[in-house]
């Protein structure tokens, strides 16, 4: 056990150093992917917008929104969703 303990500690240290320095060893450019990050954010925003559109429709059908209110909200939300799609397409 006396020999094993230092070996285990050294092994753990090695794992930690290997893990945390991975991105530094790969270099700044390899880790950089701004477009991918932007796309993920926009996809999440798009899904949230779709959820809002569905919610509004369910509110209309279950009597919590009047037809006029729903039309206004739906138009606004769909315009926002289209804008998100446009921005997604711009990323290529």
């Amino acid at each position, binding site marked *: *056990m006396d020999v094993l303990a230092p070996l285990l*500690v050294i092994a*753990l240290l090695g794992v930690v150093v290997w*893990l*945390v320095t991975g991105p530094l060893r790969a270099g700044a450019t390899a880790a950089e992917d701004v477009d991918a990050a932007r796309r993920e954010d926009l996809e999440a925003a798009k899904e*949230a917008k779709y959820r809002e559109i569905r919610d509004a429709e369910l509110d209309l059908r279950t009597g919590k*929104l009047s037809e006029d209110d729903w039309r206004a909200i739906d138009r606004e939300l769909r315009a926002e969703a289209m804008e998100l799609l446009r921005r997604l397409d711009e990323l290529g």
Partner: protein
Amino acid sequence: MATVGQACLILALLTCAYGIGASLYGAIAGRRDWVDSGRRAVYALAVLATAAFVILESAFLRSDFHYSVVATHSSTTTPTFYKAAAAWSSQQGSLLLWVWLLSLWSSLVLFLVRRRLRDVAPYATAVLLGFGAFFTSLLIFAATPFETVAAAPAEGTGLNPLLRHPSMMIHPPMLYSGYTLWAIPFAFAIGALVVRRVDADWIRATRRFALAAWFFLGVGILLGARWSYAELGWGGYWAWDPVENASLLPWLTGTAFLHSVMVQEKRGMLKVWNVSLVLATGTLAILGTFLVRSGILDSIHAFGASTLGVPFVSLIGLMIAGSVALIVTRRDSLRSEHRLDSLLSREAVFLGNNLVLVGLAFVVFWGTFFPLISEAVTGEKAAVGPPWFDRYTVPLALVLVLLSGIGPVIAWRRATLANARRNFLWPVGAAVVTLALLIAFGVTSNVAAVTMFAFGAFVVAVVGQEVARGVSARRAMASEGPARALVSLVRRNRRRYGGYTVHVGMAVLFVGVAASTAFQHARDVRLSPTQSATIGGYQITYQRATARADYRGDRLERVALGAVLDVKRNGKHVTTLRTERGYYPSTAAFASGSIVQGIFDGDATSEVGMKAGLTRDLWTAIRPDPEYLNKVIDALVVKTRNQPIDQQFKVVGNLLGTYKQGAFPAQFRLISSPLVTWIWLGGIIVFAGGLIALWPAPDAARRRVTAGYAGRVARELGRA
């Protein structure tokens, strides 16, 4: 292996320090590689904390008494099931559990958002690693679990008998999961404020974690209540005890947060309120951990000493000061995008619900900390009891249940008269009918309870109506049968229908609380065998005494003195109940050589005799009469003082025989409570709703198409 465990903690602290520096440098210098390295420091923390936790758990399972913490919290006779749980009954083990859970949840959230929120995430990483550094520092410098002694004692002290209950295996990890999960929205809120990105993106990214925190904390609270009811021998499930209250505080503010974020997501309103709530909830989660571990307030289950007071108070002070400074300096970015259109709108109801929940949290906070406040002001420690809490919480709970019925059906922005009539007619009718039935059956003695029953019916009717209308709408849209339409409806709107299910569960739970407190019959009686007492129409007869000794191997584990009770109603046998008082021998008295003294000087627990039913629980607990028992014990102690151990065991056997045969009187607590089971059923419904809301949504359509944007929106909406 203790050396390896200690090295894991030191490496963990160094990793946290490195990760904080790397994340902040990466964020400020715009270096993605350093940010990623900081994120990986969280993964490394998870590896190290897992290794440390496994080493400690294996020491407990092996009963390795070289570890001081194992010797003081476990024994060879502790059942294996409880040996594993004994780790977190200790100060050191519970702090390690905290770090371990924090590292796992933090790794999960940072992995999921590794390509999102790139501006916010590095600061959130630094905050999460800051918590990691704080707790690993405590484990290294103040409460190390890997302290060892050269000569291990032959036997350990054993686990506190009160904690030998199945729910205690799950209750602390649930609570700690809740506490640690609240650190995640807290950290992302800090990150969002630092970079002034205070839209709903960080809320969406961490919403599931906030919901999981709420879920786990709620499960932990309910398991604690169940443990109190079944194990503590006083007959209640909630005593407004400081440690219970400490877990309730972040749950209340967290519940408020889960509601008010919907207003921010829908309308861009309440931004200051939301960040304030989540920062307060994160701080209260740390406060909850502190109260359990510090012993600063007298509690039936504060399992720590107060050595950690200064570091915890410093951390809490830093969290409060930092949160306030960030909110004040970012107030321009936190302006609402819309104003409240009408007081008759869902936004207004959510705001009302938030005020009630925060009001409840304030009442609980004030009552919990009153002993410290009174000591600071008057120099004397004074506490407030359950009647004080009930005076304020009962009306607030009534309003909360009412609002939980109004919220799901009132319109966003502005409710019209026609809309209100359409949505509230049947639910109000259900409430009125319930009220009329209660009055007709003469249930009028407690106005608050009767009002709660009516409000509960209102909530159930609202949700029933909502589900029926949703199914009807779904059937019209998709030509599905009712069952299929219900499944599709819930599957496509998990958050909404999960939330509605939670509301039903809470209504059921509150009805159970109201009924069991308002219409409970409780008596403390002293009975000798063959004597009877009546409670709530039941005749309970003390049939005979029971006595037995439980051994594990050749070691006496417990002496149980109990009673068999016969229960009759209107002369007809209903059930037979068995209740016991368990005495766990004190190791110290054993060491002094007196077995008899040792048995009754140790810890004692109550085994409740209970018949639980959907409409009523009959609950009994025995406490052998100390006046008689002590006389017998004192005589036996004198008689056996200088006798060898095997002779003393024989005397214990004789004592048990005498108790069984004799006509010793005993104290009994007898309780007849209606609808207690509804509390546990309500809790199960609440958590089923939580699971529905937590369950991931079906894969959203992400394929790109080349049609016009309006067509794409319509098509993708239809597919998802």
